[in-house]
């Protein structure tokens, strides 16, 4: 696993780049706009720090670049690798569509099958399975691009995502503290 410090540095670099781009482009921005720009650049920077090695990062980038207004920012942050990354993220989107249709057909079949088992033992285990399934679904909704992952890859992606989020939160917090301190001075 990449060490957290290099991850943070990369993230910070790219984030500051994106922020400066934002600030240079527009002179007056409302609070919400600013917040959005900050968050967006942070997320994209985070994702690009992974260099599209993880699915969640690719999904994040693809989601961000869907919106035309953000495209420029995304490209800038991503830098030279943007083209290849974009292609990778596009393919991911297509994969998602295929998987979704598969899942729908699978679900309709499994519903018919599920009615058979009714003994007590199986009931208890099926309740547990249902719980786990519900939670995996929620987790899939949380992790970007999680809809098309198998259970195993979902866990791996969550691991990476948690690490990146933590790094992101740390850097942002310190930056916020610094700016606060500076403002007080």
């Amino acid at each position, binding site marked *: 696993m990449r060490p957290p410090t290099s991850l943070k540095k990369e993230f*910070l670099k790219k984030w*500051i780049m994106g922020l400066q781009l934002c600030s240079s482009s527009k002179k007056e921005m409302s609070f919400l706009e600013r917040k959005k720009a900050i968050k967006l650049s*942070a997320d994209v920077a985070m994702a690009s720090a992974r260099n599209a090695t993880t699915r969640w990062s690719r999904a994040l980038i693809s989601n961000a670049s869907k919106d035309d207004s953000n495209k420029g920012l995304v490209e800038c942050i991503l830098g030279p690798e943007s083209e290849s990354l974009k292609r990778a993220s596009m393919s991911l989107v297509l994969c998602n569509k295929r998987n979704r249709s598969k899942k729908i057909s699978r679900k309709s079949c499994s519903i018919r099958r599920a009615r058979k088992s009714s003994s007590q033992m199986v009931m208890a285990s099926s309740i547990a399975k249902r719980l786990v399934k519900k939670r995996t679904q929620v987790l899939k909704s949380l992790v970007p691009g999680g809809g098309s992952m198998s259970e195993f890859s979902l866990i791996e992606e969550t691991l990476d995502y948690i690490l990146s989020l933590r790094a992101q939160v740390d850097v*942002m*917090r310190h930056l916020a503290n610094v700016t606060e301190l500076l403002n007080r001075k």
Partner: protein
Amino acid sequence: MMNMASPEMLHCLSTSGNVAGNGTDMTVLERQRVRMKWQQEQFQQQQQQQSYFGGSEFSMFSMGGQVGQAQQFHGLINGDSAALGDLLGRAVKADPGLENVWPEFGKLTMPGTGFNVENAGFECSGILNCSGFEMNHTTSRTSSCPLAAAEAKVRESVLPEKIASAVGRESFKKRKADTVQSPKVVAEEETKDKRIKGCAEDGESKITVANNNNNKNSTTTTTTTATTTTTTNNNNGETSADTSKENSKVSEVQKPDYIHVRARRGQATDSHSLAERVRREKISERMKYLQDLVPGCNKITGKAGMLDEIINYVQSLQRQVEFLSMKLAAVNPRLDFNVDNFLAKEVFPACAANFPTIGMSSEMTNPSYLHYNPIQQVATCGVEMGINPADIGLRRSISAPVSIPDTFLDSCFTQIQPSSTWDADLQNLYGAEFHQGRLMSFPSQAAFTGPIDASNLKMEM
């Protein structure tokens, strides 16, 4: 009356209470049961025996050692009905000659246990009759039967566990010889624990018929817990094995270019269950990493619970990002961060030593910094570059691998556990560094030369 009752009672107790070996050691509940049965029997016979009341009572009375028995009876009564004391008092009064022998009964404090006065009355009369020795014997025997059965149940449920544990231990050893995969020792031990439980279940079901329902309940509960835990791969395999009755000790799956898996003893060996087992083990491994990452997950062992914690954690992190971006937006009216870069170096002087990266000169690794904040700096230094010999001693205090080649850093994070724990440790250390509030107190170092280029960020954190 009482005197006659007491040896009988004790006899009854001793016959039924063979387990304890001493009538007084029987639990209150058992004594109550005995008395209940006894009452019911005595009630039927009380009329016949009333007539003999006066005669033999004194003969019994003359038997020695009444006081000790009285005390034992005392204990009995204390556990039993509340009204009995009154009745005894009444009985004592009815025969004033006996008052001397049972002085304590007047002082008895009765715990209320909801006994009917009627019942107690019957009971008293039953106790008072004397000629029905043999009757009492028989009744005591019959009354003791259900008690004995209950006792037997209690004992027998204890035994199968011991037997099963012995069996489990044997299979323990056999399994240790069988299994090949050494890195999964932890998982194996856990699965072995579950196996012992499974053996215990089997043992119980074989022995008592009366406990059938209980056993079924226990098996269902254990299987439900088994399915929810991630480390109970073997248990699931076991249940499938029981149904399929396959007893293959070791079977090697020969699949070219595939992962070689060995089925453990008593498990199904078809490819589906094996593949499932491999998949489950992989997932449980990942969950273990997640357990280390997510704080507070050490106590939770179920998959659903773990997922819940993970979801909460991810949500909280995402919310934190939102909040921090809002805060930054509020603090920065113009979204300019150039100034930060310049001043941050003053504010984060300690970080300078931590980032020996692009263009960083060796002056940055000021030994005074190392002194001030040795461990964190050392950790981060060691992470980045080669090892500064001065740092090695400090770094040993952390449970992280000492030399970290760059290739390792770039490798896939599906590595062995130490990497994830190491990351977590570093994260913690890194975070702790800033929470110390040294931002204010640290003297600003003027050792920072070089151009502060926005694009060539030397922002040290």
